């Protein structure tokens, strides 16, 4: 989910850049050396996972995964998503340099948001946990499309229809993201809770065998 170059107005670009810089700076500050290595590798994994396309009827949707990024990395979602977008700009020209700030905020702010709001609930047993896990994926994309729409509308009234289309058009993606995120969280809770907050141990597992 990103906005192309050449669309947004100067104030919107500037606001995006400032907020993104703040988020990235704060996210980095919370990472120690070991956490940075971990964040780098996890970011690479998210980058690869975001290339997965899921079938949706005759069409296919590709994953955003920002809710999951937020849940796994917390505030480090800002530098992680910034990194991911920069590499996407370089490798696929999705987005560019001037929109990097706005696009980072569009994806990372909801990521941090859902992680702060929902992470206490995802570990719960039964229906509560399931709904919270689904919500992580669903609402992260939902809030992202709201932010994207806001960026467009702030640029000009002409973009109102496109902004609405972005929200409505992303609805199937939200549902798919919710389901997918739910499955991933359920996997991690059972197999490797170290990656999820609350259950996260402070250090990276050092053992490579006898796990």
């Amino acid at each position: 989910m990103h906005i192309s170059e050449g669309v947004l107005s100067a104030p919107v670009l500037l606001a995006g850049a400032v907020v993104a810089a703040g988020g990235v700076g704060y996210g980095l500050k919370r990472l120690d050396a070991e956490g940075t290595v971990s964040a780098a590798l996890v970011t690479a994994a998210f980058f690869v996972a975001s290339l997965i396309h899921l079938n949706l009827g005759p069409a296919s949707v590709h994953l955003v995964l920002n809710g999951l990024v937020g849940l796994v990395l917390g505030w480090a979602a800002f530098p992680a998503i910034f990194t991911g977008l920069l590499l996407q700009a370089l490798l696929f020209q999705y987005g560019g340099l001037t929109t990097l700030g706005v696009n980072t905020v569009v994806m990372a702010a909801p990521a941090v948001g859902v992680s702060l709001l929902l992470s206490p609930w995802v570990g719960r047993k039964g229906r509560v946990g399931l709904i919270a896990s689904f919500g992580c994926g669903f609402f992260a994309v939902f809030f992202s499309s709201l932010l994207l729409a806001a960026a467009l509308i702030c640029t000009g009234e002409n973009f109102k229809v496109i902004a609405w289309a972005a929200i409505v058009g992303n609805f199937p993606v939200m549902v798919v993201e919710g389901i997918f995120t739910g499955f991933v969280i359920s996997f991690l809770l059972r197999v490797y809770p170290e990656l999820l907050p609350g259950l996260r141990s402070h250090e990276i597992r050092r053992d490579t065998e006898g796990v």
Partner: protein
Amino acid sequence: MADALMTLSGLTYRYPGGSEPVIRGLDLTIHEGEAMGLIAPNGSGKTTLFHLIMGLLKPQTGVITAFGQEVRGEKGFREVRRRVGLLFQDADDQLFSPTVIEDVAFGPMNLGMGRDEAREKAREVLATLGLFGYEDRITFRLSGGEKRMVSLATVLAMEPDVLLLDEPTTGLDRETGKRLISVLRDSPVARLVISHDFDFLEQVTTGIYSLVRGTVVMDDGLHLHQHAHVHRHGESVHHH
């Protein structure tokens, strides 16, 4: 002679950008009930060969015939994958479900079984491999040997007609190695086992060939010769 299950003829594969083909003009036939061993060092193209058989790579030249029909296109290989089971060299690459039962039931479910039926099937296969009480274990937390046996279960659960085993003894402890040998010896399924472990091949196959410079050396010019080795008896692992 028993019926030919699979025949590869004139298979050649070169990796994009590679200067030389890894597999060149390879001919190979696997007959019903046959247990074939293929001695191959690392880098000799053994994994490539298996990927070609399963249609994960497309050969530049050559024809694969499986179960009486020439295999063509993705659709043809889908049928091959139903009937040929491949055991990866690294069990960590083969197992991706949270629990053992889910992993073993995954294949049967893809073959069209319902969830419960697939789980029943999975339980059966686990039992025949002596993996009692493993159903709800977390696959990821199993030991290397246990992972290898579960991988085998995931493959056997699809009731393959041919079994391809890629270095099945790598990193195995002695105990699991023994169990693997006894399971394979009891199985009537035709198989092609690639390994660099001569002793193992001797025990689980009836004929041993070599993969040399991209082709299978099938002549029977086999000689008996002897080696002297120094090592501790008993406890130490005994790899030759």
